[in-house]
């Protein structure tokens, strides 16, 4: 039984805290080598328990390696070593000291298998080992581990830890862990009520989870107290949930904005219905893949820089493809928007199949650099770094684009050409060159959108297809020819979608948004930010 297992572990931990004699390296090594003969996960679990009982910080390395599946048995002498894979085999090192211990071929070693349950046990063991650690983060984690397991036997240890703790944040966590343990300890009513309050004060999901399981087994006054605490937490969480919907909406909106903003240029400014827009995004994503692949091969240290490196390249590659498309096809079709639709749809098919032939039909792996991975807590909101960066990135791209269109000579010429081609031409603007540049700019923007989307979506030849309809909806909804419209449109649709999703489900929510757009267009055929007056009608 897992509960028993945890009890035993905690018991061992207490023993450690009480200050038993430190086992020497040899004893630890013997225990470790016992893993070579362990048969089944249960046996490994027992050894992990024994090792943790020694309380020797040197065990940390070995346990960590076990948890990440890096512990091997050398078949020749049945010793347990850490192995890091390299081509054709492993580099071995000592599990306690970390000293290099030679190399081995794939067939010469056998991996010590771990599963989820075992990994959790190891995590808890490591957590226990570190309650007295010098690193406050480690102590914090240890407190969290005990909070979740809530073992009553840990109370004395926790009291000791609380007494010596200096860091207020860690101290708070320790108190909460103690409260958690108190709940399980059948303590007197007053003490339990205080514990309930402490936990309720935490106000997060873990606290709720703990209180709920406590409430299920409690009676009378205490049950009511727990119920009240639960209600209080749930109320706060409901507020956070609304905030969370807004954030998710903004995040979805930023993805839509990225996908659509290039289209706002090619479609909105130039009137080209670019059905190959999605493929420009896809090319940007594949550029990222190629950049990462090269970095992995030649310079793995630069991996965190792969996205900044990929950005300009993706822009150039997509812009280049866009330029070829514009010069080769679209320039013959100006003024015939519906025909550009057909031709660019053809282009999109060709591009998809080309990429499929070059890179294969399967998804390619684009990794998240460390700064794009993981999440942080903002109150009860889990904000993932990749989403946050994408929101920031989308806004930067938008701002840059506004700057280019409104403040640079190229932007001025672009607007001049769109508004009155003949006049612009007679004023000496090279209109064909401006057309090509505008289209290339729109395509290039799509390319850098691809870099961002590669972080959250499939990188496959179909990548673009998934965004093309949504992009058009955003541009049309926002009002063609108006960048601000695209911005507002993207975020409105994103937030709307996310508020509908919890009630209607993902599918119906999306259908509802589409229908709303169709109805909206009836009301305002030119979108949210349409220009009025005589000029637009002509």
């Amino acid at each position, binding site marked *: 039984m897992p509960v028993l297992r945890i009890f035993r572990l905690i018991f061992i931990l207490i023993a450690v805290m009480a200050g038993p004699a430190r086992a020497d390296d040899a004893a630890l090594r013997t225990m470790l080598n016992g893993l070579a003969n362990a048969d089944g996960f249960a046996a490994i679990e027992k050894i992990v328990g024994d090792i943790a009982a020694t309380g020797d910080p040197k065990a940390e390395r070995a346990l960590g390696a076990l948890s990440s599946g890096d512990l091997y048995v050398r078949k020749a002498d049945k010793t347990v070593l850490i192995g890091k894979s390299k081509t054709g085999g492993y580099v071995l090192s000592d599990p306690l000291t970390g000293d290099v211990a030679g190399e081995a071929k794939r067939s010469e070693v056998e991996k010590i298998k771990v599963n989820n349950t075992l990994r959790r046990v190891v995590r808890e063991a490591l957590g226990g080992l570190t309650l007295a650690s010098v690193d406050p983060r480690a102590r914090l984690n240890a407190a969290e581990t005990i909070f979740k397991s809530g073992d009553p036997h840990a109370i004395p240890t926790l009291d000791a830890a609380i007494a010596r703790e200096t860091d207020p944040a860690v101290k708070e966590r320790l108190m909460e862990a103690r409260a958690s343990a108190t709940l399980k300890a059948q303590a007197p009513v007053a003490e339990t009520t205080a514990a309930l309050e402490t936990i309720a004060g935490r106000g997060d999901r873990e606290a709720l989870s703990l209180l709920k399981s406590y409430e299920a087994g409690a009676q009378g006054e205490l049950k009511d107290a727990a119920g009240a605490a639960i209600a209080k937490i749930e109320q706060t969480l409901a507020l956070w949930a609304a905030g969370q919907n807004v954030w998710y909406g903004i995040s979805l909106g930023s993805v839509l904005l990225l996908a659509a903003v290039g289209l706002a240029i090619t479609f909105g400014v130039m009137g080209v219905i670019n059905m190959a827009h999605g493929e420009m995004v896809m090319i940007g994503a594949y550029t990222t893949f190629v950049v990462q692949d090269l970095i992995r091969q030649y310079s793995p240290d630069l991996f965190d820089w792969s996205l900044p490196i990929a950005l300009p390249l993706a822009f150039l590659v997509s812009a280049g493809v866009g330029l070829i498309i514009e010069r080769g096809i679209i320039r013959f079709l100006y003024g015939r928007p519906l025909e550009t639709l057909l031709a660019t749809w053809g282009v999109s098919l060709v591009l998809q199949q080309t990429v499929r032939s070059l890179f294969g039909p399967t998804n390619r792996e684009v990794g998240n650099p460390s700064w794009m991975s993981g999440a942080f807590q903002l109150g009860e909101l889990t904000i993932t770094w990749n989403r946050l960066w994408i929101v920031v990135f989308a806004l930067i791209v938008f701002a840059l684009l506004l700057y280019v269109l409104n403040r640079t000579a190229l932007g001025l010429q672009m607007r001049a050409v769109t508004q009155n081609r003949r006049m612009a031409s007679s004023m000496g603007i090279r209109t064909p060159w401006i057309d090509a540049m505008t289209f290339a700019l729109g395509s290039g923007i799509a390319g850098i959108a691809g870099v961002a989307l590669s972080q959250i979506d499939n990188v496959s030849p179909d990548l673009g297809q998934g965004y093309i309809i949504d992009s058009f909806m955003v541009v049309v909804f926002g009002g063609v020819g108006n960048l601000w419209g695209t911005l507002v449109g993207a975020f409105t649709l994103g937030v709307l979608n996310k508020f509908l999703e919890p009630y209607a489900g993902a599918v119906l929510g999306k259908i509802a948004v589409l229908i709303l757009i169709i109805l909206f267009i009836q009301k305002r055929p030119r979108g949210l930010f349409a220009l009025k*007056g005589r000029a637009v009608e002509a």
Partner: protein
Amino acid sequence: MSAKTTTSILYLDGVSVSFDGFRAINNLSLVLEPGEMRAIIGPNGAGKTTMMDIITGKTRPDEGEVFFDGRVDLTKHDESEIAMLGIGRKFQKPTVFESHTVEDNLVLALAGPRKAIPALFHRQTKAERERIDEILQTIRLTARRDELAAALSHGQKQWLEIGMLLAQDPKLLLVDEPVAGMTDAETEETARLLREIAQTRSVIVVEHDMQFVRELDVKVTCLHEGTVLAEGSLDQVSGDSRVIEVYLGR
């Protein structure tokens, strides 16, 4: 409702409209009597076309009254209803059905039912044919009746469009710059045509060409910044100092 409303064919009073804060028409009042032809002049942006848009129902005024034929409030009707009431409009840029023949253009314009389903089973009557022959004569396109309208010259398209207005048999014609892009001879011819039309209908002509306006020899209204600057005979108006200031130049 004043007496003026009931007798006039067109009655505009205190009409204003603005686009995104720009006042295109500002407290405009204009009265047209039945059988009258009126020329409207004014610099670009004076609100001439917008005024036509208001009369034909394309643009709704923000405020003011627009009455047709003494009783119909035009602000409550849309373009097709207004057209069916008897107001025909020729656009600044000649707008004809380019992929139809000259004759078909007139056929489609002929007064008659405007519903979709009856059109499926419509057959041309003798009376219709004769009316078309007559109009073709009037607009001097008999020889080109079977050609596509797209093949016509700019001036001929203008005429065809006037012909379509005739076929529509309206009480009031709004004609926007009918002689733009025409030769002198054509211009003269057009003036004659319009005078002929004005014998039986009311007409409003918007034009820049002062020579042409002179040939029409009718009452002139000068618009400026969406409001009436001067009204009277051409000589009176062109003598007005403000008109000279803003439009004719010194």
